[in-house]
């Protein structure tokens, strides 16, 4: 399958701080790719390198068949970007900014613009200085999705949106995918990523720690099983891949490595299963597994 973005061994230093440390990421054509990581992990830095705003110190990048630094202008005609913290000019109206961004990108579709304004309930006659964070974000989202581009780079685009607007945003991303476009969605919001993304990359301290489809990643982690049996379940702890067993009478709950589920179920049926509940790990649990130690250690945040 052709790739929209492939990054290999990307290094970016800010003075003595290493923001990206041999980071790898592959985004296929026409997928919605989730990009996760805690604050300061290097998400925004990666996106800024992809935009040619920062110059990489080492590594290979192929962005839509070009080099993000050398071919910046040509590539920017084919992509749209929604920044994390949207800063706009207080004296310009939202409508003016949308037109400006669209024109500078190479033109925008007036019908699409009107449709997006309506969908996001944005008043284009208001000055940007009076917009809330969510409304500034809507300006950037409308400006991006009213353009006819191949790739969208979205840096935490829903952090200021209310739930209704989040639904409108998801609809917009789904449409874009259906039309054959590619979306990179950097986010903290697991629900958005779970709902939208085909594949995800998790970054931590400038390195890739996980990449793959959500299903693939789930295989790398544990499933929670709660089971009620006719007789007490014995010898569960002796099975490979079983963790955190708790018993309360005939109720048993435990975690199991995803590739050991089959063996464990065969074991369980010997005891007369009356009910069984299994929960696949949520993205949040995946994420917490990679960052749990960091959260508990309260590490100092680094430069993004």
């Amino acid at each position, binding site marked *: 399958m052709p790739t929209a973005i492939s990054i290999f061994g990307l290094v970016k230093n800010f003075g003595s701080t290493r923001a990206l440390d041999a980071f790898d990421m592959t985004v296929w054509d026409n997928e919605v790719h989730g990009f996760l990581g805690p604050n300061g992990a290097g998400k925004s830095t990666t996106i800024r390198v992809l935009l040619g*705003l*920062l*110059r990489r110190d080492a590594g290979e990048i192929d962005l839509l068949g070009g080099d993000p630094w050398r071919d910046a202008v040509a590539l920017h005609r084919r992509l749209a970007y929604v920044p994390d913290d949207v800063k706009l000019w207080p004296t310009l109206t939202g*409508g003016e900014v*949308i037109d400006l961004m669209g024109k*500078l990108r190479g033109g925008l579709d007036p019908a699409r613009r009107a449709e997006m304004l309506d969908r996001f309930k944005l008043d284009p006659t208001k000055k940007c200085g009076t917009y809330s964070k969510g409304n500034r974000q809507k300006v*950037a989202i409308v400006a991006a999705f009213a353009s006819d581009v191949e790739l969208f780079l979205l840096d935490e685009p829903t952090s200021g949106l209310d739930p209704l607007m989040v639904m409108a945003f998801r609809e917009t991303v789904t449409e874009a995918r259906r039309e054959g476009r590619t979306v990179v969605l950097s986010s903290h919001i697991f629900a958005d990523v779970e709902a939208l993304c085909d594949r995800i990359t998790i970054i931590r301290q400038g390195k890739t720690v996980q990449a793959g489809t959500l299903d693939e990643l789930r295989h790398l982690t544990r499933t929670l099983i709660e089971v009620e049996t006719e007789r007490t379940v014995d010898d569960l702890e002796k099975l490979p891949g079983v963790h955190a067993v708790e018993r309360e009478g005939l109720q048993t709950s435990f975690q199991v490595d995803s590739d050991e589920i089959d063996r464990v179920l065969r074991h369980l049926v010997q005891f007369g299963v009356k009910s069984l509940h299994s929960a696949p790990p949520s993205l949040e649990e995946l994420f917490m597994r990679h960052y749990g130690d960091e959260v508990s250690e309260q590490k100092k945040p680094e430069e993004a």
Partner: protein
Amino acid sequence: MKQAFTGTLALAWVALSRDRIQLPIWIVAITLFKVFVLAAWNGDLTDEELLSVTQFYGVHPAMRLFGLASGPTLGAYVMSRGFVLFAVLIALMSILFVVRHTRQDEDTGRAEYINSAVVGRHANLASAFMVAVGANIVLALLISLVFIFNDLPVAGSFAAGAAYAGVGIFFAGVASVTAQLAATSRGATGLALLALGVAFALPGIGNMLGQVDEEGVRIISSWPAWLSPLGWGQQMRPFAEDHWSLLGLFGFFFVAFALAGFYLETRRDIGKGFLPEKPGPAEAAPSLLNPLGLVWRLQRGAFVGWAIAVTLFSILFGAVSGDIDALLEELEEWTDIFERIGGTDVMIDAAFVTFVGIFAAVIAIYAVQVLLRMRLEESDGPAEPVMATAVSRQRWIMGYIVNSVLGAAALLLMAGLAMGISAGVALDELGTWVSDLVVAALVQLPAVLVIIGIVVAAFGLLPRRVGLIAWLVLAVAIITGPWLAGILDLPEWAENISPFSHAPAVPAEAVTATPILAMLAVAIVLVGIGILAFRRRDIDLPAG
């Protein structure tokens, strides 16, 4: 009712600590400015000279625009020269302070947070008043002391300080009302500045339309002067008549504005104003849709302000030309300085070389401001989405450079034209003066371009230092420029540092191509270095 003011003292303390740097800087800077102004004028003027300069300010209608002559004493002369300028500065301090601590808190959401605590409805505004009035009184006392240390009469010194404080406190009241009216802090500041502009214009007009006494040393103003707090401050006539009773006018209006501010505050929601924010265009005009148009749009308001100020002052400087010979006969020291700067003993030509040079230096400040906006867009973040579009770095930076160069050229042209027309009318030689002074102004452009070049190069090479470098370069160029170097008696090598020293001294001398071409070449090389460096470096954006 008493509850409405709960927490006022605590909030006043918060306001003071938030402003522990900004407010003292205003107060100290204005006081020091006064010290320098007095040092420049004190001791040098004989009684005859005082009489003649006072008459100059009394008789000449254009000069009356900026001051009210009250008598041939040093104190009265200093007040007529400096009162309006200092009153405007002090009013600005008050307006910015009050808006910062009322309306701006609402814009940032701080006010909501504060008001959720045990704080009365009027506590925030009342605390802003307390600190603003206090700051004005401190400043007034300091200014009075500066006068007293310069051996001026004590009563007049305090009257002068009181006149300044009156204006400052009046505008604290005005700002408290505009903060309720406007929908944003920007709007509140704008409305208050509009009021300040009207207050600035009225006494000027009133004094121009007024009568001057037989000796030509005391103006009796016409009625418009009495419609403005700046007018009342002038009419107090410190060091001449000391009309203390006019303080009552300031007090009355401050109380009235304060009550209006409190009343309006009870009638509106937090974060909203009485004047609805006017809707703007839903679609952008085609002229906005490129980097050049964007920068022009962002800069337009500032440019218009500069254009008005440059034109007005140019008319004024042109208009005094008719009296310059007469004035300089009285003040021999100035004759020497003008001769040195202009390189000619034809005083009128030497004077215009000086005037045009000063305008060029001031216009360079505008050019630098446009370029520093570029850095602000980068460090604050709005540049990021623009550079993520199909705009190359050259096109982006050229948007600022072209606006800076064309803006400076247009302002120089306006200065030359306005000065030429008004001098031409005064001296009855319209054609000659217009063409001479337009050329004189335009040959200053290469010197401005050198400064633009240095700032662009700094932006490319040392983006985080560009603000410091820009102001330093401006300061050095002005201090070692021909006018100050003349007054400060600097050696020739020092004078040669400033690009302004190399601009042809038209109309005293003919235009010479060598310095113009040399400065153009330097400017182009510097701009080229800046653009190349900018294309190769990281964009220095806020942490995301």
